[in-house]
């Protein structure tokens, strides 16, 4: 078992795809379709095209300065205090976003499968699993992702094949949804769907060679965006534009509708197993990267000991919203909008500092 070596390109790619690609299974389509109706399927593509240059800038700077990871880069470019302050800001943003993300998925699990159990228990269990997985270390996470990745893709492909006869492609028209301006606004401001990518940039030191990291993350990002757009297209053609606003979890609704022949009619739990595993990997990684970011900001070397209190804090914050409507449309929506502005500004600031430094030298 090759656990002791560092992460390869394939593992990083698989991690990225599971980490970002799982967005196609939560309430993202509902959130988007509230303002853009049936044009929501290509919004991630627009967001990606808008955000991609900024990511590339950050990756380029990382490469240029041979920095250890993101926080290191911030410190090099902005000086120790300012860099640490900015890193702390990034940490606070992603921490709160992660907490509400956790809450969103816990809601999903509870609503769909565990009606009567209390939400605290399910949340506690999820945190426990994340802590348990995160303590193992990043290399184990990478290895698990590599083993699990083909299975997850297989279940997605099976879902697509089974739902294909029920799709009606004309439903993507009218092509601009609720209007071109709305679509553009949402596309630009929801760039923070990929905000978890900033966290992924902490993985750099664990990759075997820096090239592995760059290749793995960029390939993973592109593949996951294509996957998201394709699955959103399927939701748009399966649910019409008025019904998708009422369906909070399109992935599970599709799994509820399809059947495998006339004997296997209720196969939704089959898809649930793979989905659940992908959710675990995502949250283990999220907890680990958040703690790493925190540790790097405050120069703590053995940050693995902080995973437990960090997880507990996330649970406490995640239990604040009352219900899914408040969670989704108030907290997450505002946070995502703010985060996108933040994600635009940070690489630009870094680029400006880079030019200043070049001038000085």
């Amino acid at each position, binding site marked *: 078992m090759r656990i002791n070596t560092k992460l390869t390109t394939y593992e990083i790619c698989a991690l990225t795809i599971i980490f970002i690609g799982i967005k196609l299974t939560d309430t993202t389509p509902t959130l988007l379709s509230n303002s853009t109706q049936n044009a929501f399927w290509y919004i991630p593509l627009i967001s990606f095209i808008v955000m991609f240059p900024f990511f590339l800038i950050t990756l380029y700077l990382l490469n240029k300065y041979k920095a250890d990871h993101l926080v290191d880069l911030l410190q090099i470019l902005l000086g120790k205090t300012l860099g640490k302050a900015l890193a702390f800001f990034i940490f606070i943003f992603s921490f709160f976003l992660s907490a509400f993300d956790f809450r969103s998925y816990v809601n999903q699990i509870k609503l769909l499968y565990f009606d009567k159990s209390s939400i605290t228990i399910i949340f506690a269990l999820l945190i426990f699993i994340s802590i348990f997985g995160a303590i193992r270390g990043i290399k184990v996470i990478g290895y698990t992702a590599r083993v699990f990745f083909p299975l997850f893709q297989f279940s997605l492909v099976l879902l697509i094949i089974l739902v294909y006869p029920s799709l009606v492609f004309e439903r993507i028209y009218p092509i*601009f*949804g609720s209007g071109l301006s709305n679509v553009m606004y949402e596309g630009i401001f929801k760039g923070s769907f990929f905000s978890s990518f900033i966290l992924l940039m902490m993985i750099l030191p664990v990759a075997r060679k820096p090239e592995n990291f760059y290749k793995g993350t960029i390939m993973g990002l592109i593949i996951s965006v294509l996957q998201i757009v394709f699955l959103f297209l399927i939701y748009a053609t399966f649910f019409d534009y008025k019904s998708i606003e009422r369906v909070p979890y399109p992935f599970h609704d599709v799994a509820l509708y399809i059947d495998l022949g006339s004997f296997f009619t209720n196969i939704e739990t089959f898809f649930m197993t793979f989905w659940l595993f992908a959710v675990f990997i995502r949250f283990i990684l999220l907890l680990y990267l958040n703690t790493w970011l925190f540790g790097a900001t405050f120069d703590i070397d053995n940050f693995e000991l902080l995973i437990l209190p960090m997880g507990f804090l996330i649970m406490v914050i995640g239990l604040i919203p009352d219900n899914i409507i408040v969670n989704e449309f108030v907290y997450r929506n505002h946070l995502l909008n703010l985060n996108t502005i933040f994600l635009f500004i940070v690489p630009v600031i870094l680029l400006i500092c880079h030019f200043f430094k070049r001038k000085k030298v």
Partner: protein
Amino acid sequence: MDKWIKSTVLIVLLIILSSCQDMIEVEKESFVIAIGMDVTDQEGIYEFTFQIANPNIASPMTADPNGAPDEILTVLGADIMTAKDKADAIVTKRISLDHTAIFVISEELARSGDLLRVIQPGTRTSHMRHDIQIIVSKEKAETFLNNNNPIFEQKPYKYFQYKITQTKETGIIPYADLHRLLQITEGDADLFLAIYATTIHDEEEIEKSEDQYLAGELLQKGGDKTQFMGSAVFKNGKMIDLLTAQETRIANLLDRTVPLNNILVTYTDPIKPEFYISGNYIQTKNPDIKIDYDAKANHATIDVTVLFEFEILAIPSLISYAENNEHKEILEKHLVETNTQLAKKFIEKTQEEYRSDPFYWSLYIRKYFKDVPSYEKADWHNNIYPNAEVNIKYELKRLQFGKTMSDTNLSEVRD
């Protein structure tokens, strides 16, 4: 020491595997196969009938030859969930709606427009699948479910599943699951067709061609009492009319979201009109629909071309259509003409009486609009379709004659 801690933690975790408060043994659940809904004298209160399957029938070992295949229970309630709660107090096991296969709605309830109110829990809870079939029954749903006693099928779940799949393939009932109901009703641009069925037969049979019947009109002696035939037309969630099996077939064949392509039809014999010709009507491709949309005048011209093949199965008049070219041409023209006439009459009826289309043709007009608000303003439902000019053309691609080359020559056989 470490090992002990780890093993204890693992064993404690095993307890959680039973899903906390949600744990329920399969034996403690009873599965509802059909839910019937009726109106009562009070507004807002409906009568719900649950048909619960007997699990012992499933395995031959525990099957009791005299046991009932199902249990039918009727309670009052404001919605499905309250009724289920009341029923839970009566049955021995907790009711689960996970395997519901059909909703039966009485015609009275359908015409009152309360369909969406009653069905609403089906969308809100995640426990009901969206492929539940919607059936409108002529009599009360309670009577329908009680009278429905299939002779061969012991398991009610299999009965409904096979029966509806089988009947759908003949085209006399429409595609009507909950998913389609929600898409079409919320899409607010087309008509929804629900399956029409009954267990009460008409007293006398009125002479009609083989598929112009509605459920209940077909005179039969013996066999199951339940007849599934024809459809109920819903506009904006309220039932407005009934369609015969023939009209349902036309609606199914012209709709590209319904995968129907091979049905057995009967036409009058063109040379000897007292006889009929039966054959397979095969439509391998979806009808070609071209819409010419004038945005300023908000007027559409719809050109429909239907390509079909016909395979003759029975010619009781014994006229040789296969060998005689002249006769063949007469037959071909007759087929095309009859189909075009029927379709035209039906389309005119939908334009004038219903003022909307049951073919889901609003899909084709969508690409002429840039965004949703302008599409909704143009209003396919009330403005574009009723005033549209529809030209429908049938084209016979191939005429096949089955196995025999020629029929018996009756004059030769009889001395």
